[in-house]
């Protein structure tokens, strides 16, 4: 069992948990993730390691409440325990001195982009960052991102904070202005966002790294649920990724595979919302 030692609410539907998992903290590096399972009847879901503290033996995860498991996780409090936390999984980000780099985080993708931006900065890169969300309430970690970026652009879809734009708009402007100066781009966020970022950067030939969020079961390369088509070659996101060259990804297939369990997910959520905890969670939001 893995104890939750801290919990924060970053936005009405974005929460942060700090979990004691020394075996994960010991080796964790930016870009890696864990598989968690809340209780014995729960499902296994992947969450990126947003931060870690080796000395305290803890890892931090930031998640958006989108369905049964993440909403359930959102109701847990310090002192509660998770049934399973396995990791760190996947390959760490390839951090090196590239020159000028661009980090794009969309929505809950701001969480995983932060440690990458920080590591890139520490490696001596000039870090340009764009973070965006649907609306102001969903933005978080502006200060942390600012502290590791030479320049930070913030946008919201509805204009409630920063620029009224989706992240690809400032991206296009940067590309038009100085594409040849940008050595490498990282983009983490909803699959659709990553797809359009890659579409925008492809004509300029700038390597664009994305962290894919396919559906996983074991996270160790055993099931193939997380497979992705890279220009005809099949890879497993959990062991070969999660980061890939976004220009190789078959986004249509990826987006379709993310919808496999839509009906079941809705059913699970509705059923959970009828339970006491669910009522409290839903009430707490309203």
């Amino acid at each position, binding site marked *: 069992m893995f104890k939750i030692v801290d919990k924060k609410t970053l936005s009405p539907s974005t929460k942060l948990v700090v979990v004691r998992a020394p075996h994960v903290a010991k080796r964790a590096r930016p870009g890696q993730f864990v598989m968690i399972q809340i209780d014995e009847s729960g499902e296994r879901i992947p969450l990126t390691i947003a931060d870690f503290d080796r000395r305290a033996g803890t890892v931090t995860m930031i998640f958006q409440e989108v369905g049964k498991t993440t909403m359930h996780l959102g109701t847990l409090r310090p002192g509660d325990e998770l049934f399973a936390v396995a990791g760190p999984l996947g390959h760490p980000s390839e951090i090196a001195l590239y020159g000028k780099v661009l980090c794009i985080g969309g929505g809950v993708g701001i969480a995983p982009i932060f440690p990458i931006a920080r590591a890139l900065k520490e490696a001596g890169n000039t870090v340009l960052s764009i973070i965006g969300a649907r609306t102001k309430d969903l933005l978080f970690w502006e200060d942390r991102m600012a502290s590791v970026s030479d320049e930070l652009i913030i946008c919201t879809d509805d204009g409630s904070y920063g620029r009224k734009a989706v992240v690809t708009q400032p991206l296009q402007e940067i590309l038009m202005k100085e594409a040849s100066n940008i050595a490498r781009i990282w983009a983490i966020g909803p699959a659709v966002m990553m797809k359009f970022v890659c579409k925008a950067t492809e004509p300029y030939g700038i390597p664009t790294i994305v962290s894919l969020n396919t559906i996983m079961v074991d996270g160790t*390369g055993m099931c193939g649920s997380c497979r992705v088509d890279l220009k005809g070659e099949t890879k497993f996101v959990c062991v070969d990724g999660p980061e890939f060259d976004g220009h190789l990804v078959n986004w249509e297939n990826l987006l379709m595979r993310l*919808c496999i*369990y839509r009906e079941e997910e809705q059913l*699970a959520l509705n*059923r959970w919302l009828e339970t006491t905890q669910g009522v409290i969670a839903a009430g707490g939001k309203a």
Partner: protein
Amino acid sequence: MEERRKKLNLNRVPMPKQPPETRRLNFEEVALGYTDDLARLEAERCLECKKPTCVRGCPVMVDIPDFIGEIKKGNPEGALKIIKNKNSLPGICGRVCPQELQCEKQCILAKKGAPVAIGRLERYVADWELHNGRRSIPEIAPSSGRRVAVVGSGPAGLTCAADLARMGHSVTIFEALHVAGGVLVYGIPEFRLPKRIVQAEVAYVASLGVEIRLDAIVGRTVQVDELLSDGYDAVFLGIGAGAPIFLDVPGKNLNGIYSANEFLTRINLMKAYLFPEYDTPIKVGRRVAVIGGGNVAMDASRCAVRMGAQEVFVVYRRSEKEMPARHEEIENAQEEGVIFKVLTTPVRFIGDEHGWVRAMECVQMELGDPDESGRRRPVPKPGSEFILEVDTVIMSLGNSPNPLVPQNTPGLETTRWGTIVADENGRTSKRGVWAGGDIVTGAATVISAMGAGKRAALDIDAYLKAL
């Protein structure tokens, strides 16, 4: 001679089973096991041969006539002691060993077409213990002060760990998943091997003092070299052959196409058949095709039946005769309504506008000359293409070794198939590291993995004593 022939009883006592029409609708165990009387009756058929040929057929050499003799005397507890001397997982082996190819094949009565039902008797003894709870902990040698890390908690790892613990070594198992048992928990379905049986066997191994560390992925959470430098004197790798193989034809990543590993893991390990009480979902359509002809294909097709599919096809490229699955399992599947389409192979999967598989184009095959495996090679019949409408496909084409450990362990030699190179005692090219089970042989059987775990334990023990 005349005298003896008269005594031969060639009527194998059948084991009661759930009738097909009932069991198609539940995940409970299909075969119900012998009662005391049925077990005695079957045991009576054993001749207790002086030079028992059956024992030679058992990869761990269970003293078969001796334990059967105890059943005759009405002493299952005595039988249990004898079995446990060689086999610490009898409840599992009695159920899933391919006995017809092993102990029973070598039984003297097999020549008459009615070998003693050794597997069923072994299961009877193990079940007796489960019901009576009279678990006798075997003797454990005094502590040697040596530590061994066992990676993987499948049958190879569990056996190796149990034997080493009995020899007095301090053993830690590292298991990637949140439950111990390997394929026994994530692959083989509940209706063939109830998980409470596996749990009881795992608890037995733990009762010997073995520490089981779950959620620990060697190659990611910890490296083999770290284990060796962190105070473990030896490492045993029993990591199985767990990576799924996909048929490389167009459309293989459409929605509704599963590997057997994913399909079975969702159902068995994550209990998707109890969704929504359990959170893990699964999608089983009305017409399901399982590609392949091994035990895994039989398990997948029988799970699909139980998940409510209307028609389930097993699509296999050779003929029924070449199917690697156990005869008993093929028969069970057929009884449950699974339809066999042999000499057939898919050439592409066809999807709808939302990316869901709707059909597969197949081609018929004929058998040509034998290939390197000795079986006749299937060759496509030109012009025989046809469309099979399906909305779920389960690829059951076998597994390849998961590269996580080899890739992260310098100095560990592997073959071109990715299996780890090890001698008959499990010694690998790396000092202090042993390997056994599916990771060495490729996908094989529970009992052969156990045999490998046993031999490695003996060799590790010798190595530790010489340190």
